[in-house]
């Protein structure tokens, strides 16, 4: 028998070890997105369906291009952390690990592809 208190045995054995960090990131990114998303929605929505020349003219300008890239990046970071919580709630074991890897990979791929596209349009 080891002379340890229950508390000492429990310290550091939380499910993810970094729960507060995760939650804090979600709060920070949600506030950032709250500022960016409305403007982005208007710029993107007006460009969508407006034809090639008009869409190109919109995202050639620095502000729409930077805002689009930033919204995509922060949005995808916010997404993968949120989706991860859902996966942790409903799946377990290897399935959970593989799905988390898939979501993280997908969000980074979308971020890279989107920023490449936006950069090519803007530059």
């Amino acid at each position, binding site marked *: 028998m080891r002379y340890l208190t229950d508390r000492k045995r429990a310290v550091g054995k939380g499910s993810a070890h970094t729960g507060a960090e995760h939650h804090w990131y979600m709060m920070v990114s949600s506030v950032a997105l709250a500022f960016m998303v409305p403007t982005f929605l208007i710029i993107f*929505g007006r460009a969508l369906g407006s034809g090639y020349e008009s869409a190109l003219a919109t995202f050639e300008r620095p502000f729409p291009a930077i805002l689009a890239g930033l919204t995509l990046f922060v949005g995808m970071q916010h997404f993968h952390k949120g989706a991860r919580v*859902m996966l942790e709630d409903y799946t377990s074991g290897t399935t959970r690990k593989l799905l988390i890897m898939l979501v993280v990979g997908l969000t980074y791929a979308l971020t890279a592809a989107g920023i490449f596209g936006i950069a090519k349009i803007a530059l």
Partner: protein
Amino acid sequence: MAEETRIERPLSPFMIGPYYRPQLTSMSSILTRITGNALIVGTLLMVWWFLALAAGPEYFETAEWWITSWVGNLIMFGSLWAIWYHYLAGLRHLIFDAGKGLDIKTAEKLGWACIYGSVALTVATVIIYWI
């Protein structure tokens, strides 16, 4: 002295249905998760649109035809509502995190605010697109 015992840790159980009757608070909460995760579909289309715009006019025409087809429109306008719902529900989450609005009456009011507010904001955004 407490013994070290191995216990099977349960997954967080899915409470709505078998244990809890569906209520506005729980439904508006689960809808936050559904809308947030569903937004990946609209994001995929959006990134495709940006890549197509970068690729040139011919490919862009194909991509935009799909994205503004009736299926594409359904996804994009659905995503517009989803993003507004998730937006308002996220603000509600920040209020809850600050320890405010947690009594049932206020929480239910905030739930209705998310539902009606998201529809109102979607309509307002579509009007801005038209003008």
